[in-house]
C-alpha cells in the first residue's frame, strides 16, 4: 500500500500527462488522416476540373492524329491508349521521377475514359502532391507544438499554482504530524482564505483541543486517584503491621493475615507503578546525565542473583562494553530492573538468564514457557496472559514507555525456546 501512495499533486499531474499523451496518440493519426483526405479531395477536384475543361474546350475538335502532339506539349494531362478494364473515372496516388532533382515525387492521378472520334481512350491527369504534403507535415508539427505547449503550461500551473493553492492543506498536515498528545507542543494552524481549508483548520483545532482536554483529564484522574489511594494504603499497611503484634494468633488468623499482607504488597506495587506511569506521561524526568549502563546493571544483577538462588536459576552475565548513555539515570535504572525482574519472574525452576551488553545493545534472554509471547499486546498495560501469575502486567509497559521517551528501541523475540528482550540505546 505504502509504495502505491502518491502525493496529491503528483496524482493530478499524472492524470494530466496521461490524458495529454492519449489525446496526442489518438488525435495525431486522425489529424494526419483527415488532413490528407481533405487534401486529396482538393486534388481530385482540380483533376476533375481539368477533365471537364478538356471535355468542354478540346474534345469536340480533337482528332486521333492530335494525340502525339498533345502528349508532347502537356506533361500533366495526357491521352493514353484505352484500358479495357476501365469504364469510369479512377483516382490514385502514383510517384513519378523528378527530372530536375532526380528523385520520385508523389502525384494524385486521375484516369478517365474518353472517346475520340468514336474510339476509346483514357485521359490521364495528374497534380503534384509534394507542396501540399509539406503543408500537411507543417500543420502536424504546429499541432504537436501547440499540444506540447499546452502540456508544459498544465505542468507549470499544477506545479506552482496548485502547489500554492494546496499549501494551507500541507501546512495543516505538517502541524498534525508534529502534534503529540503527551507532549505539550502547541499546535499552530495558519488561517486560509479558501473556505475548505479554513474549515479543515477549524475542525482540526477542535479535534485536537478536545483530545488534549480528554487526555489531560485522564492524566489528572490517574494522578489524583494514585495520590488519593496512598493514604488508605498507608493506613492499611500500618494497621496490618500492628495486627501482627496481637500474639498469639491462631493458625487460621495468621494465614489470613499473611494473604492480606501479600495482597497489600501487590497493591502497593501496582499503585507505585501506576504513579510512575502517570508521571512518565507527564514527561517529568527532564534531568539527564551521562549514565553507564554497565555500572547500573552490575548492582541489579547482584540482587537478581540473590533472588535467583531459591529457584536455582542460572544467570550468565557478559557485559562487554560500558555503554555510556545520556539519559535520566532513574529511568534507565527502572528500565533495566524491570527487564531483569521480568526475566526472573517468568522463568522456570532451574532455568537460565543471560544478560549481555555490547555495542549499544542490551540483551536479556530467559527460559520460560515454550512459546512466543504475543508481541502486539506484550507491552500494553495489564496485558498479562495468566491473571494469577506473579507479574503485575505493568513492568513491560513501563519499560516500553521509558524506551519510547528516550527513543531507544525495545524489541522482543522468541528464539531457540528463549524469550529475548533487547534494548538498542
Amino acid at each position, binding site marked *: 500500500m505504502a509504495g502505491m501512495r502518491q502525493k496529491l499533486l503528483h496524482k493530478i499531474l499524472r492524470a494530466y500527462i496521461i490524458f495529454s499523451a492519449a489525446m496526442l496518440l489518438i488525435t495525431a493519426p486522425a489529424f494526419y488522416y483527415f488532413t490528407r483526405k481533405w487534401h486529396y479531395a482538393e486534388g481530385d477536384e482540380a483533376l476533375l476540373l481539368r477533365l471537364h475543361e478538356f471535355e468542354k474546350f478540346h474534345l469536340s475538335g480533337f482528332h486521333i492524329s492530335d494525340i502525339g502532339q498533345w502528349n508532347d506539349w502537356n506533361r500533366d494531362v495526357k491521352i493514353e491508349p484505352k484500358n479495357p478494364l476501365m469504364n469510369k473515372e479512377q483516382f490514385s496516388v502514383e510517384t513519378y521521377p523528378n527530372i530536375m532533382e532526380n528523385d520520385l515525387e508523389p502525384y494524385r492521378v486521375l484516369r478517365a475514359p474518353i472517346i475520340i472520334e468514336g474510339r476509346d481512350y483514357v485521359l490521364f491527369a495528374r497534380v503534384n502532391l509534394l507542396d501540399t504534403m509539406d503543408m500537411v507535415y507543417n500543420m502536424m508539427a504546429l499541432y504537436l507544438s501547440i499540444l506540447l505547449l499546452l502540456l508544459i503550461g498544465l505542468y507549470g500551473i499544477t506545479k506552482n499554482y496548485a502547489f500554492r493553492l494546496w499549501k494551507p492543506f500541507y501546512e495543516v498536515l505538517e502541524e498534525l504530524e508534529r502534534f503529540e498528545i503527551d507532549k505539550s507542543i502547541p499546535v499552530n494552524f495558519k488561517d486560509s482564505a479558501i473556505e475548505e481549508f479554513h474549515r479543515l483548520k477549524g475542525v482540526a483545532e477542535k479535534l485536537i483541543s478536545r483530545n488534549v482536554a480528554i487526555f489531560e483529564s485522564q492524566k489528572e484522574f490517574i494522578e489524583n486517584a494514585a*495520590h488519593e489511594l*496512598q*493514604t488508605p*494504603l*498507608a*493506613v*492499611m*499497611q*500500618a*494497621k*496490618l*503491621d*500492628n495486627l*501482627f*503484634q496481637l*500474639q498469639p*494468633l491462631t*493458625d487460621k488468623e*495468621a*494465614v489470613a*493475615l*499473611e494473604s492480606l*499482607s*501479600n495482597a497489600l*504488597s501487590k497493591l*502497593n*506495587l501496582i499503585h*507505585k507503578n501506576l*504513579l510512575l506511569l502517570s*508521571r512518565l506521561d507527564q514527561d*517529568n*524526568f527532564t*534531568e539527564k546525565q551521562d549514565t553507564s549502563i554497565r555500572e547500573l546493571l552490575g*548492582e*541489579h544483577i547482584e*540482587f*537478581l542473583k*540473590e*533472588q535467583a*538462588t*531459591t529457584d536455582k536459576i542460572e544467570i550468565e552475565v557478559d557485559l562487554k562494553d560500558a555503554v555510556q548513555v545520556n539519559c535520566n539515570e*532513574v529511568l534507565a535504572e*527502572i528500565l533495566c*530492573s*524491570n527487564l*531483569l*525482574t521480568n526475566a*526472573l*519472574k517468568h522463568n522456570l525452576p532451574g532455568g537460565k538468564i543471560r544478560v549481555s551488553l555490547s555495542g549499544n545493545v542490551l540483551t536479556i534472554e530467559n527460559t520460560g514457557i515454550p512459546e512466543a509471547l504475543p508481541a502486539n499486546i506484550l507491552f500494553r498495560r495489564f496485558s498479562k496472559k495468566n491473571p494469577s501469575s*506473579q507479574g503485575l502486567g505493568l513492568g513491560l509497559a513501563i519499560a516500553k514507555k521509558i524506551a519510547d521517551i528516550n527513543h531507544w528501541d525495545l524489541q522482543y523475540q522468541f528464539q531457540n525456546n528463549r524469550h529475548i528482550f533487547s534494548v538498542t540505546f
Partner: protein
Amino acid sequence: MGADNFICFLLLPLIQFFFNIHPNLCTMKLLLIEDEPELAGEIINYLSGHGFRCEWAKNLEDALEKVAVFEYDSILLDLMLPDGSGFKVLKELKNQQKTEGVIIISAKESIENIVEGLQSGADDYLTKPFHLPELLARIQALIRRKNFTGSNSLQFNEISIDLLSKEVRVNQNKIELTKREFDLLLFLVGNKRRVLSKQAIAEHLSGDMADLMVSYDFVYAHIKNLKRKLSEAGGEDYIKTVYGIGYKWQA
C-alpha cells in the same frame, strides 16, 4: 516534697545527660505531624512500645506551635497538610536554628520533592505507604546519627553491635556477617519484641531494589544464616519464627 525537689533539681539533669549519650535506652520525644488520624494512631501505637513518647500535630498551625515551644528528638513530617505545606515546618526549624532530626513521610514521591525536602533540612524521606518497622528503623538510625558520641554501639544481652565498623560480637567473639545479615540483625534488634512480616524484612533488605523483588523467599535464607552464625558463636536463639507471618526478635 523534699524528694520531689531532689529529683527535679539534682537527678533530672543527670538523667538528661544520661539520656543524651544513651538515646536508645530511654524515652525519646517525638513529634508526629500527620493529618490522617487513623495513620497517626497506628504510628503512635507502634512507636510507643519502643521508648518513644509521641506528640501528635494534626495540622500545620498545630505543628508550628509545638515546634516553637518544645524540643523534640525527632519529627515525622507529612508534607501535605490541610492548612498548608509541611515545608513551612522545615523553614521554621531553620529559622529557629533547631537541629531536630526530621523524617518526611509523604505521599508525594517525586524526585524533585525528595530533593527539595532534603535540601530544606529534612534528614530522611519515607514514601507512603510504608511498614511501621521500617519507620522505626529509620528513626533509630536518625537518632544515632544525631547523637553521635564516638562509640556508636548497641548492646543486647551477650550481643554487641558496632554501628560504625559494622562488627558484631557475641560474648566478645567476633562473628563475620554479610552486609545483608548485618542489616537484618539491626532491623530485628531495633524492632525487638515485635513481629516483623516477611514483606517488611524483604523490603528493608532490598532497599532501593525492592521493586526487583520477585519473592520473599530470600529472607528465609538470610534468617537461617544469621541464626546459625549467632548460635555458633554461643549466642542465645532470639529469632523466633511466627507462623505464616514472619519473624520476631524474642527478648
